[in-house]
């Protein structure tokens, strides 16, 4: 109840994973963990709902095993985009918050 953050666009294809561990390194929310399966190391999604769709894992995956529709989870930018019909601005172009 009152949790709209339980689904997201993160998809992981274990078949393509080469076990480099980059996803586990770059994720700021510990979504991935490296597991030993048979003789090889592969990544596993251990905290799927913690994903904030920043896209770091996808960008740094050398084997395209990760897909995520990355973007900034900023309601102000989305509402502004919806009202003006323009594409979503991110921090820096407007008075957007975020430091």
């Amino acid at each position, binding site marked *: 109840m009152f949790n*709209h953050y339980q689904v997201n666009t993160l998809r992981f294809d274990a078949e393509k994973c080469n076990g480099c561990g*980059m996803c586990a*390194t*770059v994720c700021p929310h510990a979504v991935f963990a490296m597991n030993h399966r048979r003789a090889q190391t592969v990544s596993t999604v251990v905290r799927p709902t913690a994903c904030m769709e920043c896209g*770091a894992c996808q960008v740094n995956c050398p084997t395209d095993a990760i897909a995520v529709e990355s973007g900034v989870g900023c*309601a*102000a930018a*989305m509402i502004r985009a919806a009202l003006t019909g323009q594409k979503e601005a991110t921090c820096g172009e407007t008075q957007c918050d975020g430091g």
Partner: protein
Amino acid sequence: MSTPIRSTSSRIAPADRWDHFLARWAVNRMGHRVEPGLYALGSPTPDAPVFVTANYTLSFDTLRGALAGVDGYILALDTHGINVWCAAGKGTFGTDELVQRIAATGLTEVVRHRTLIVPQLGAPGVAAHEVKRRSGFKVEYGPVRATDLPEYLKSRHATPEMRRVRFTLADRVTLIPVELVGALLPLLIALVVSCLLGGLMSALAVGAALLAGVVLFPILLPWLPTADLSMKGFILGGLVALPFSLAVFWRHGDWASWLQVASALAWLLILPPITAFLTLNFTGSTTFTSRTGVRREIYAYVPVMAWLFGGGVVLQIALRFLS
């Protein structure tokens, strides 16, 4: 022809602190920049580590301030004065800029090794394997927070704790001034309009609902129930509305009881959506909300906010004619 190497130190001067203060209050928001390029911190040798950062003064100063006693190089990318994480999301702190900046500064001639320490939060913009292929430099993702760098440099290993982004009370309080400045104009307009329409008490109530969303919410965020920021805002706004709602019964003790109840109800309809709308907008400042989740929140809550607020205003206006 490569750009010159500037020198810098880990000392944060009073002028730097003043600049940080202004940045936190959104004064000249896009103007807090350092020149992009290569900086020598202390007396670095060709084997000294290279740290990559953004050309936003707060990012640059946080990095150098954390490196007291370290001799190294700082490579400041041109992110147009935006911090590392936001710029990485946008791509300005990215593979292309990094590769070009390495070439422009002649970094290959300055250091003997081929390793760059890039902040972990720069990863959404930087493809480490691409940088390696295009520049020969290996990207090593350092910790999320620059303050963990001294510990990281001992072993070149970040603990799981160093890899996790946080959103501490101090982090959240730091955001309040910039949130306040951003909300100033709507705040003043709302105060004037509500004062003209409903008098001083109305302005006070609306002002309280707005300030709850901007000031109280960042502080109370983790302690308010539910996961959705809008719902947290409705709860907080409800608490703020309660005294204004109850005050109707003694302020208008002479009214018929059904008028009193209706007027009290009007406040409970009008105020919480104001706070909730502001807290929904705080999603852009948090360190954890996904775009998918925020979009779903918008669709779920914005219509409810509009109906409650609209209903409350209509009720309030009707009551003015009836009482």
